[in-house]
């Protein structure tokens, strides 16, 4: 039952005349270490702090961890950091929500009707072939350099993976389940609600996680090259003034955003797909 590797039997046992039962070498990596995901980052942080304390780092290039925290505190109490964070969050939220809605609606339309598939699927794949960030200049011309174009770009980055994964999950519904629905006399509406949608949820969540990551990626790029406010703008200004600690504060906040949103999606996924837990645990 145990997966841990066993040590060789004691030497005395081998000297006895009766044959010794040797266990096979275990090939599984063994028991998981507690809080194993945190060990690597914590080690890196400790290394950074130690090097900074020993004076091995150029404070202009890589300031010490406590300098970064102090700068974050200063920017927070000055009120600029909360404003920048709110601006960025708002953009990401609008873009993400729009992209999510578009991705789900298009995937359902393409997955549930042949006409929808003919109209939508090829078009989305064409859209996917164009790097979305390459659309930025055109969108600025069309929508101006305000908020609308930023939200539109983020929405496009988000909707593509959500559409692709949801659509492929929808069209991959096991035909045996379709047969079952026919035998049980399910109406079309019930078939969609009780078989198609729950069957496509795992694929949807894969798309959702990619979409969340994509929304932050889009945000970072947009705010660094075309912003007049927000976290990216703050970092861009800091670059001009050589304030590496402020840049690190920006990165820290982006990192927290990413981590929190990904954990939130995973939590929802675990709740909604609780029937899968028995398989993976």
């Amino acid at each position, binding site marked *: 039952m145990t997966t841990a590797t066993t040590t060789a039997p004691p030497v005395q046992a081998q000297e006895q005349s009766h044959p010794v039962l040797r266990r096979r070498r275990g090939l599984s990596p063994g028991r998981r270490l507690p809080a194993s995901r945190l060990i690597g980052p914590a080690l890196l942080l400790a290394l950074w702090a130690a090097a900074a304390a020993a004076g091995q780092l150029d404070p202009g290039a890589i300031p010490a961890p406590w300098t970064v925290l102090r700068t974050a505190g200063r920017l927070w109490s000055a009120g600029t950091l909360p404003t920048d964070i709110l601006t960025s969050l708002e953009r990401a939220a609008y873009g993400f929500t729009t992209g999510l809605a578009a991705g789900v609606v298009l995937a359902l339309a393409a997955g549930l009707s042949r006409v929808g598939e003919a109209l939508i699927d090829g078009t989305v794949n064409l859209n996917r072939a164009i790097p979305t960030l390459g659309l930025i200049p055109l969108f600025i011309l069309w929508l101006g350099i305000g908020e609308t174009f930023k939200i539109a770009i983020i929405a496009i980055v988000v909707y593509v993976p959500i559409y692709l994964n949801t659509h492929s999950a929808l069209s991959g519904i096991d035909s*045996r*389940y379709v*047969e*079952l*629905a*026919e*035998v*049980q*006399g*399910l109406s079309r509406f*019930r078939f969609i609600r*009780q*078989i198609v949608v*729950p*069957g496509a*949820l795992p694929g949807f969540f894969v798309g959702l996680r990619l979409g969340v990551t994509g929304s932050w990626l889009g945000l970072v790029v947009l705010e660094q090259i075309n912003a007049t406010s927000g976290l990216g703008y703050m970092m861009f200004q800091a670059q001009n003034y050589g304030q590496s600690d402020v840049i690190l504060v920006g990165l820290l906040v982006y990192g927290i955003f990413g981590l929190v949103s990904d954990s939130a999606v995973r939590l929802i996924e675990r709740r909604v*797909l609780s*029937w*899968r837990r*028995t*398989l993976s645990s």
Partner: protein
Amino acid sequence: MAPHTEQLTRPAVQLRGLTRSFEGRTVLDGIDLDLPAGQFTALLGHSGSGKSTLLRAIAGLDHKVVGSGQLTAPEKVSVVFQDSRLLPWRRVLDNVLLGLDGKEAEQKGRAALAEVGLAGRERAWPSELSGGEAQRAALARSLVREPELLLADEPFGALDALTRIKMHALLRELWRRHQPSVLLVTHDVDEAIVLAERVLVLDAGGVALDLAIEGDAPARGEYREQLLAALGVTEGVG
């Protein structure tokens, strides 16, 4: 004297000249067949003999198949497949109730689960069931609709030998209690003899043998030889 020859009641299933073909190959060639109400019939045949095609035709599941002929089947038909075909995202009771709703249906569902020996597992996920339990749940799902005709497509084919014996007893018991007509497709001659009152052998698109199973154990060896001969199987001397 065989039960199927004295048709006192209207036949549950009536086939006249039923023909089905796939890509030009005729699988069922003008089959005439009556299945009396309440009879337990087993359908034997080699793989590719058209057993499943016939069953799917009666179940009304052959949308895209070319065919002709007349087919009469009851309104309430349930199908048990070789795999349990439980939806992994619905709990066992919700699987049994698929397509039904209301308090009354739920009570029937619980009763059906108790009948197949799964009382207390209503809230379990299908992935938590063993192969035999999953197939029991599938039986409950077909029972809860009180079918006049139960179609079973090699329902025990994926189970181990011991579980299969238990399932045979369960199916016999359920049939005796609820009296649906049963059409069981199988490739297992012994299973057919143990379970059915009548065994059909399907070969070359038609019914090659129509055998009434009567009496107890002594006669069963003869049935076995007769059926194996019809299937073209000769057993080597052991």
